[in-house]
């Protein structure tokens, strides 16, 4: 009898990862749907498996891990974020946790810049005006936004994505790029980005991009006090995690003119319902978490999640080992 390789996959995912697991002789069971799995179904499906291939929509907590039983060796998420996984509960049971870093970086950095431009140039209002028949003959002062040239851009979290955003913004003629992070990083020099305290980021920047993950340190970092310090013409862009922004305070800041506009690819909760005040707010652009929405990214993420599982099975170091 060989090594047990039972894998439960919590969604229909791109083929490349599935092929990798099958070729290595894994026994696969699926939640065979495009929709997120419910907790009840997850508890049923995870029972007795050796590996879990999951999504960021799955809450992998104590109850779920308990239901898995003693064979579970690895939780492999098809995402970079892992705040949906209880790391302590996994550590307790000696279960490895893996994610899919790097392979979606370019997609997310690109989407972040797209969202920034969408917001600074008021393109949602433009698209809506066309659809609603409100596009009249060209007017010199209709729907004017902000040009990026000569502006100061701030990046919260100069990791892979933050760095990718900074690189892409340089030829737009931004005058200064500031960043705040848990520490200074040497590669910031390559894009001419200067470290700044969080308060400095708030008071100096015309545009701020949130490119950090969600941790106890970053949760609700953008709250009422933060918005009060920002410039009234400032734009906030979030492609990290929704929980970094206190959404009620954001709504207040947008309606009162404390900041000019916000572009959100991630929200809390996700997605926002269509009658949510932020969705209806004219100076708030909400996207349905499209950060890595390319076939390239998703195929690679699927492969990486599968490779991570095989690495753990084979006692090798996984590319995306979190712990």
């Amino acid at each position, binding site marked *: 009898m060989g090594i047990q390789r039972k894998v439960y996959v919590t969604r229909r995912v791109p083929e490349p990862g599935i092929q990798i697991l099958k070729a290595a002789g894994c026994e696969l069971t699926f939640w065979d749907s495009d929709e997120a799995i419910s907790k009840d179904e997850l508890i049923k499906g995870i029972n007795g498996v050796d590996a879990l291939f999951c999504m960021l929509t799955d809450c992998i907590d104590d109850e779920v891990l308990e239901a898995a039983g003693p064979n579970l060796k690895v939780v492999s998420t098809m995402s970079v974020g892992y705040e949906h996984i209880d790391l302590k509960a996994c550590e307790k049971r000696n279960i490895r946790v893996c994610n899919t870093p790097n392979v979606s970086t370019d997609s997310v950095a*690109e989407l972040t810049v797209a969202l920034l431009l969408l917001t600074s140039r008021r393109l949602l209002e433009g698209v809506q005006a066309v659809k609603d028949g409100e596009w009249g003959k060209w007017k*010199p002062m209709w729907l004017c936004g902000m040009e990026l040239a000569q502006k100061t851009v701030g990046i919260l979290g100069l990791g892979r994505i933050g760095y990718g955003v900074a690189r892409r913004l340089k030829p737009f003629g931004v005058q200064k790029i500031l960043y705040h992070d848990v520490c200074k990083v040497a590669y910031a020099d390559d894009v001419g980005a200067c470290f700044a305290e969080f308060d400095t980021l708030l008071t100096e920047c015309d545009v701020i991009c949130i490119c950090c993950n969600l941790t106890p340190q970053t949760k609700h970092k953008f709250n009422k006090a933060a918005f009060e310090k920002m410039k009234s013409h400032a734009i906030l862009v979030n492609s990290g995690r929704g929980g970094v922004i206190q959404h009620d305070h954001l709504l207040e800041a947008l309606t009162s003119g404390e900041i000019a506009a916000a572009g959100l690819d991630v929200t809390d909760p996700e997605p926002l319902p269509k009658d949510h005040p932020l969705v209806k707010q004219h100076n708030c652009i909400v996207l349905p978490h499209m950060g890595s929405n390319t076939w390239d990214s998703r195929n690679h993420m699927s492969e990486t999640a599968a490779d991570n599982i095989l690495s753990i099975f084979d006692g090798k170091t996984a590319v995306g080992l979190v712990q």
Partner: protein
Amino acid sequence: MAKPKVLVTRRVPSEGIDILKDSCDVDIWDSDDVMPRATLLERIKGVNGIFCTIKDEIDVEALDAAGPNLKIVGTMSVGTDHIKVTECEKRQIYVATTPDVASDSAAELTVALLLITTRRIAEGLAAIKAGEAGPWKPMWLLGNNSMGKTLGIFGFGRVGFGIARRMKPFGVSKILYTDIFDCNYAEGVATRVPFDELLKESDILCICCAVTQQTKGLFDEKVFKKMKKSAVLINTSRGAVINQKHLYDALKNNDIKAAGLDVTDPEPLPVEDPLMKLNNCVILPHLGTNTWEARRAMSINTAKNIVASLVQ
């Protein structure tokens, strides 16, 4: 000595008007809406300078109405397709435009439109507004990265160059351009190729040329058949460069993948136009230079052009 008389055909950023008022007698149509034709022909009589926008037809009728005192037509735009330039030349009337000051905004907008189209962002926005977006799904609404793609630019002027510069760090593997001459500033940025090669090779193709006899209706069914089926077409120059009926067919029949248009023919495009119904056609209401920075600079530049011409 009487001050020169200038007619301003629209409400524009005040910085330009202030410059004019310093040395000229200024008559302003102080409205956000286009000056009615009859009013234009009446108030244009005897002026020395006109400060106009792209929605004012400065044709033979208008020039005749103005009379022999007209020395300069200053348009708050780069395009001059609304002005009878050859007729102005005949009458020794100088036509002044606002290149350079608007190039950054226009290039920036083109990149924004390019990304919205390749990443299917308009569909994402619509899904949220309609309450049709669910929790994250691995294979929903997938678009394409620019990384590794070939970018083609038709017309490598200030805007085309600005687009190429901005797209480099997005990881495009090749930037090609077609133009009527070699651009030395393309060195290290883009390679010049014939039109057919641009069509054949481009994954993303941006139209950045002026509309002229040569370019009017150039992008037609023959051209779309030469492009890749996976190609994305972006137009931020002038609507008339594209044959819109043929574009509709090409998008419907998957001869090309998607289009992003900031300019159309006519403008505005009526809500019933077939292009409006296509999911793979993104339409913006001619926002090319829609920044306060650009519009102020365009207003100032137009005023300076006029003052330089009329005031010794």
